[in-house]
């Protein structure tokens, strides 16, 4: 492949050859996501999030149980009916073997919405549903509101700038939001198609082992673009992979080459089409990629919650469930992040918990988060069923601490209109 990978500071025109599919490691070309189940992991790949509990299986990197790939079979069904056909899933191909399907028509993605088989959870024996002791009620003390003093000597924490930085994020998060009703302006695509696209992109992001912030920026770019441009359904996946490319260029140290994106979309688009779409997206968004996403707020609120690895993973699980849901565009990034931490705490501790420290740093009370949190509980309950289970499968792996195995905080759904004072609050 003559494609070139762009390192973070590589000048234009200087690159390195992209490895072939079997050698790609963390930058593997995903012609068909299913092809890679069982492929030996790249020995150099570093799991970004360590597992919660040690196990004999820790050494083995669990492959993501895979859904159907997005191919071009979609055109016949979507173009005529506006509803995708259910296609039976064939036997798994040999690992690493390119099983690319023949293109049919000129459509782009197989937005097949058949039910996936339930994920086999048998290898995930972490019981995350047990009640844990409530954390000691903290003293209502000024010093406890300061979550940064312990890091004052750590330059990576940027403690001198952190308050100013989050003030700036708060002031600017509205600019990264979209009209939550933008889909009504689209003639050929709908919220369901958006969900299918994002569910697939979550798998692609996982397989490419990209940074968390890249995923959130990708979805933000997609939504801001779709708000401004009417996109035909056959170009929706093109928008998605190009948004991923742009997010990688902004966030990643090492950027996947365009040829890899051609391959993961089953050659539905050419390299030229991706680069043209890149220009269109950048012009439409006026090159504005510097926007606060839920990710930046999540990092802060997890610190305020004094989160351990379990809380971090369950919170991100809740947050990623929301990425797929169009209705969650009603909430600001900071609101989603706060609600994700709140919901995760409720699920882990089996009781409502939102301390004054969390409230102070998030600027949201438990009451304000309750509506959003209930929606997250609802998504959590349905996460392993239905047609779009990418997030659930991802968080059912050991790499992500089997966070999807935690029992949903169902009691949240039974609460009255306003939340009682959180039990862990001050």
């Amino acid at each position, binding site marked *: 492949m003559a494609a*070139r990978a762009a390192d973070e500071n590589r*000048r234009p*025109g200087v690159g390195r050859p992209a490895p072939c599919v079997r050698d790609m490691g963390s930058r593997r070309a995903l012609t068909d996501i299913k092809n890679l189940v069982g492929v030996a992991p790249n020995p150099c790949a570093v799991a970004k999030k360590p597992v919660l509990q040690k196990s004999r299986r820790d050494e083995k990197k669990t492959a993501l149980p895979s859904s159907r790939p997005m191919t071009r079979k979609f055109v016949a069904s979507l173009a005529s009916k506006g509803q995708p056909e259910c296609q039976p899933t064939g036997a798994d191909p040999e690992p690493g073997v390119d099983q690319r399907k023949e293109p049919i028509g000129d459509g782009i993605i197989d937005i097949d919405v058949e039910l996936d088989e339930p994920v086999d959870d048998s290898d995930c024996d972490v019981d995350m549903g047990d009640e844990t002791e409530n954390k000691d009620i903290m003293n209502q003390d000024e010093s406890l509101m300061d979550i940064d003093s312990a890091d004052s000597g750590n330059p990576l924490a*940027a403690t001198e700038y952190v308050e100013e*930085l989050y003030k700036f994020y708060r002031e600017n998060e509205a600019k990264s939001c979209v009209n939550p009703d933008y889909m009504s302006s689209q003639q050929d695509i709908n919220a369901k198609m958006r969900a299918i696209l994002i569910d697939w992109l979550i798998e692609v992001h996982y397989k490419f082992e990209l940074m968390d912030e890249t995923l959130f920026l990708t979805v933000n770019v997609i939504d801001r673009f779709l708000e401004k441009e009417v996109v035909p359904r056959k170009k929706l996946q093109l928008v998605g992979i190009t948004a991923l490319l*742009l997010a990688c260029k902004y966030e990643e140290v090492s950027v996947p080459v365009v040829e890899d994106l051609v391959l993961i979309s089953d050659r539905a688009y050419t390299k030229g089409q*991706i680069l043209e779409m890149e220009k269109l997206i950048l012009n439409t968004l*006026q*090159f504005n990629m510097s926007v606060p996403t839920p990710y*930046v707020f999540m990092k802060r609120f997890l610190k305020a919650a004094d989160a351990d690895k379990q809380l971090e993973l369950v919170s991100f699980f809740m947050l990623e469930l929301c990425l797929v849901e169009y209705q969650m565009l009603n909430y600001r990034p900071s609101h989603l992040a706060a609600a994700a931490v709140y919901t995760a705490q409720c699920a882990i501790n089996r009781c409502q918990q939102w301390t004054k420290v969390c409230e102070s740093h998030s600027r949201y009370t438990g009451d304000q988060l309750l509506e959003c949190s209930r929606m997250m509980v609802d998504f959590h309950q349905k996460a392993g069923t239905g047609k779009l289970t990418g997030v659930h499968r991802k968080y059912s792996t050991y790499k992500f601490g089997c966070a999807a195995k935690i029992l949903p905080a169902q009691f949240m759904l039974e609460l009255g209109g306003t939340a009682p004072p959180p039990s862990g609050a001050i």
Partner: protein
Amino acid sequence: MATIQNKPTPTAPSTTTGGGLRAMDLYEKLEKVGEGTYGKVYKAREKATGRIVALKKTRLPEDDEGVPPTALREVSLLRMLSQDPHVVRLLDLKQGVNKEGQTILYLVFEYMDTDLKKFIRGYRANHEKIPAQTVKILMYQLCKGVGFVHGRGVLHRDLKPHNLLMDRKTMALKIADLGLSRAITVPVKKYTHEILTLWYRAPEVLLGATHYSTPVDIWSVGCIFAELVTNQPLFPGDSELQQLLHIFKLLGTPNEEMWPGVGKLPNWHVYPQWKPTKLSTLVPGLDSDGYDLLEKMLAYEPGKRVSAKKALEHPYFNDVNKEVY
């Protein structure tokens, strides 16, 4: 041709279409003034208004990888940072096609008549020292600009005299060339260590640290400070190893006592043991406050290095008219 206009107002730039005009129909190139991270820079005149601007040009070859990450970051970050008086203003963005059919991206900046490299060179050529108060004013603006950039969650990662634009008349200084910059998240995570021009590169980066933060820019600021005082680069190494040895020779070879964890950095080896030289010997011509600030900027341990924000409060800047700058 799409256009982004960044007028000096608080409102967001608007996108308009240039009705098929090529960028060079809107601007008249006057002279080439340099090379940026990814293209040539020209002094130009806007035909409609007569305004003098700087045009930074980059080609986007169709057979390549599209918009370079450096260009994407620079434009995006400048749109966020351009409001500050100590960051160069991005006025406009033009995308057009040249005669060969290649897509060209033009970044239109306010024009500044010199940069700090040329400014220092002028004094050096005349065997003169930059007046102490001028050094102070320039350093104050630099710290203010860096503090603003850091407060927006951005590392510049290529601070050097060439990337600091100046207006000779007003002595205004502005940070430019954000081609190697990146937005960071807190806590900062792993980034590439192939950053920064060698002479201004922080020791943690030279020693292979992939987790680094705002102190890498402060080290560069310290090097620039010394260069303003002496008209000579402080650590002019010609390879990564030579650069490290230069630093160690002057500031002393670091050890676990003065920099906990230094021995665990990827590129750490057994180096010759040098004792630190007094800063007053290395950088003659500063007062005691100046030496104190310089020492804090060139602290080995990144966590002990002064922040730009704190530097602004240093007694060295007590006599700067802070309302003007």
